[in-house]
Each structure stands twice: as C-alpha cells, then as structure tokens.
C-alpha cells in the first residue's frame, strides 16, 4: 500500500457542473459533523427549489439534480453558492443502532492486511474500529446504511489502487477515513462486487436497511448513529 493521507481540502466552497443534469457543491474545510449538518439542511431546502428534481448529500458535498429540458444550471449554481454560507448548523439527534461484528475471518479477510499496514494486531484494529459511534453522513452507493463518519483517524487506510472482488452482505469495510456497513445479502442478487475498500469484518445479524414492505422503507436516516460491537476477532 502506498501511503497517501492527503485528502483534497478546499479553502472555499466550490460549485461545479455535473454535465447538464446536476450541480455539485463541495464544502470548504475538513469533514465535520457541523458542516455535514448544514449539508443535510441545504439538501432539504434545495429539493424544494423550482426545477430541482432530486438532491443527494455526499461526504462534505451536495449534488442537486435538475431536469435538463427546463433547467437554468448557471442560475442554480449561483443560487447554491450564495445560499451555502448562510445555511445554519444544528444538531439532529438521530437514533442509535448497535450492530455485532465478527472481525476478520471469512468476509473480513482484509483485516490482517490492514493490521500489517498500521503495524498493530487484528484485535487492535477491531478495538479501534468499534470504539467510536459512527454517524450516517451520506447515502451510500445504493440503498443501505450510507457513508459513516466517526472512524478513528489512526485507521486511515488509502483506497486500493486496483479494485478486488469482495462478497456482498453485511460486510464491514474501511477506506480512507470512512467506514461502511453492508446490508444483508439479497437472495438472487450479485454475490460479490469489485471494490477498492478493505473488508475487516462481517455483521451476521445486520438488519435490512431498506424494506419495501415497510412504510417508510428505510430503517435509518441521515444523522442516525451506528455502534459496532466486537463479538469476536477471528484469525
């Protein structure tokens, strides 16, 4: 693994175009809960704007999607840039979900590599990883538990340069300063997917984060918190 702890940190917020269907706001400064709370608020606000069809927070960023047939993207970009500095912060008291994790072993096969990278034992990695409370900062790549914030910076692990195939279903993974919790395996869907993340454990009893038979279908929302419990560390 090449060591590269540099993450783009902007001095000022930046608004850019994503083709002709969306505008992306990248917030200034490091990733913090206070900034992310403002992103969530702006996401809710911008979704009400005329011409906006959807919004999606990222880590320290917000995507605002429009209908390209009717949108005035320049005006939207200007409005986003002007609105952002005045968006207030404010605590959202999310719910807490505790999830038991088997670190290492099958499904957590990258734990030894991560431990070697950090020059510590697999048990040390598990302990460091399970110590903090994680906040759901942004939606993930598909309906699930989203991108989590709160990992101990000592576990910073650069994303893989070349993606590897890893099993889907309740996986606990890390990359950069982020950590992920995979949803349970869905019968009939792909069993594995390419990823640049490191799988350090699995959560055998993870509940489904999105269930169409429930109203609302989502188990968790932005601002909810997840606590990992070390059930076992396997060699």
């Amino acid at each position: 693994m090449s060591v590269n702890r540099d993450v783009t940190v902007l001095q000022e917020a930046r608004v850019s175009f994503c083709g002709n269907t969306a505008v992306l706001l990248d917030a200034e400064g490091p990733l913090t809960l206070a900034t992310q709370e403002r992103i969530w608020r702006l996401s809710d606000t911008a979704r009400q704007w005329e011409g906006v069809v959807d919004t999606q927070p990222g880590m320290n960023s917000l995507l605002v999607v429009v209908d390209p047939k009717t949108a005035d993207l320049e005006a939207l970009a200007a409005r986003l840039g002007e609105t952002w500095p005045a968006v207030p912060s404010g605590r959202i008291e999310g719910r807490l979900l505790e999830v038991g994790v088997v670190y290492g072993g099958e499904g957590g096969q990258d734990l030894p590599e991560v431990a070697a990278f950090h020059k510590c034992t697999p048990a040390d990695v598990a302990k460091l990883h399970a110590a903090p409370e994680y906040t759901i900062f942004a939606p993930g790549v598909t309906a699930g538990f989203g991108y989590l914030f709160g990992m101990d910076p000592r576990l910073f692990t650069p994303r893989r340069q070349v993606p590897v195939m890893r099993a889907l279903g309740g996986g606990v993974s890390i990359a950069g300063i982020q950590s992920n919790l995979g949803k349970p395996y869905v019968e009939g869907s792909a069993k594995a997917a390419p990823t640049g993340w490191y799988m350090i454990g699995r959560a055998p009893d993870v509940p489904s984060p999105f269930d169409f038979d429930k109203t609302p279908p989502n188990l968790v929302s932005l601002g909810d918190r997840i606590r990992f419990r070390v059930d076992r560390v396997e060699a």
Partner: protein
Amino acid sequence: MIEILETPPLNTMQDLGRVGYRQHGIGRGGVMDRLALAAGNALLGNEEGEAGLEFQLFPVRLRFTKETAFAVTGADCEARLSGRRLPAWWATRAEAGDELVLSSPRKEMRAYLTIAGGFDVPKVLGSRSTHARDSFGGYHGRALLAGDVLQSRAPEPFLFRDGAGVGATPAAEAVAAATCEDLAEGETVVRAIPAAEYQTFDEASRNALCRTPWKVTARSNRQGYALSGTPLRRNALLEMRSHAIVPGVIQVPPSGQPLIQLAEANSAGGYPKIGVVIEADLWRIGQLPPGGTLRFVWCSLAEARAAEEAAEAYLARLRRLAGYCRSAIA
C-alpha cells in the same frame, strides 16, 4: 399478453428511471437509450416514459398471446414477426399467436420492445425500471427468463391507418451527432462538460481526453463502460471523499483508464471526475458495443441545451407524424 420463449440473460424491463430517491442512495437507473424508448412509445401513442423491454443480448424470441400493437426501436437488429421482416424502428400490430424474433444487431447494442398501453407491472418507487443490483422494480425485480408471461395494460383502442404500421427515422439518422477532428469511420462522438477535478489533471491528459480515441472494453455494461486508451494523469494523487455521481460521469481511477458511469451507476462514487457526458448524448454510448471507439468533445451548457432541444424536436415531430398514422376506435 407476451410470453418470452427464448432470451439470453441480462434483458430487463426499463423506463426512464426513478427520480427523487437519492436520499436513500437509489440512483436513476432506467434505459440506456432514452431516445429509442421514447420513439417506440411515440409510435404507439404511449406516454414518453412508458416502460419497455430492453434487449442487450440476442437472439430473443417471444409470442403474442393476444392482438397487440407494438414497436421495435433501438439497435439495428433484424426483427421478424412470424417470419415477416419488419422495417427498422417500426410499429405494427401482432395477431394472437404471432412470434417475434430479434437477432443480433450488426453495429449497435440495445433494442427496445414497447407495447400500446404499456406493461402491467406495479411501479416501485415511482418507476417500472428493473433495479438489478437490489432486485426490485420491473418484472419481479429481475432479468427476463424464458417462460415469463407479461401482461399489458389496456390501451385506448386504435388502428394504424396503413395496415402495415408506422415507422420512425432512427435517431442516429435524424439527430445530428457532434463531430471532432480526424474522426474515423465508425467512431461515436459524444459531448462532455468539464467536471470538478478537470483542473487537477495535467495539461497533456486534459488534451488527450478529447484528442485521442477510446476503446470500449469488454468490462462494459449497464452500470458503466471501462475505456482503454492513453492513460490520463493527475498532477497529484489525492484521496477523494465519496460523493454523489450522475450517469455520464467520466471518472479516472488511479490506472488512468477512464470509466463512464451509465444508467445503472451507483448513486455515489469516489474517483476524480474529468468531465460528464451531456444527457442528450448518453444514448449514443448505450448503442456502442464493446470493441467500439468513443471520442469526446468538450461543449458548453448552451450547446448541451441545444442538443437537448434537438432531441426533443425529433420526438415532437415523431409524435405528430405517428398521431396522423393512427385512428382511434370509438
């Protein structure tokens, strides 16, 4: 009703996708060729975004179990209705028992079957698109299989004024593509707008994206296309934070070989973005098979708007023409 008699894997029901669920991480999905789907629906008098069947692997064989007005648009495959060859981009009426056979396209990639009234499957989160990764939407949340029986919703009854049916000029002939310098025969040109990390690429790479051809590799599907060509380099390798992405985004992983995220893209990603292909040109990528060659040209927002209007004008013309060619039955 339609019974699927034979189909390779990965053929699914799709519409224009689901919009408004990104807060759950659910991206748009939907067809790879929006113009072909909309053209089929225009020929039949359906709503523009009515769901159709997207065929990307062939041959496909199906049987109409009752009289059905249908259209086949998109890829240049050979379509035969009970042995009778159909013209390209054509709508006509099948009688009960008629068999439709679609064989492999010559140059293009994806064909669409639309039917008058549309398919009778429930909308899930506002759309009938199949979300293959999470197994919801479309026909039981999965790709079509031989033996599947698809019901139609009752259309407003109509007749084609000409019993043979009605056709459309294929979008590739009717809607002008962009062009670029030293364009070779058979290359597909798409327009793109520079994205957030454009400036972080070195000058040679910024130029190379638009000056060199890109081969579509075999690692290309509805989720995205992996391209191969002159590697693109950044001035500094920085970790990116995960952020929401849109179909059309040209990401550059550390290998320097770009990926274009397409219809079934994840809703978020973490690779730097050099540009984003404009919405009006995404269908051209959807019709480009592995082995094909892609060229990029930068364009302005104004040019993107003009491209959107050109596509819209094509569909409006088609709706008008097709309307003249159908007569309602009281």
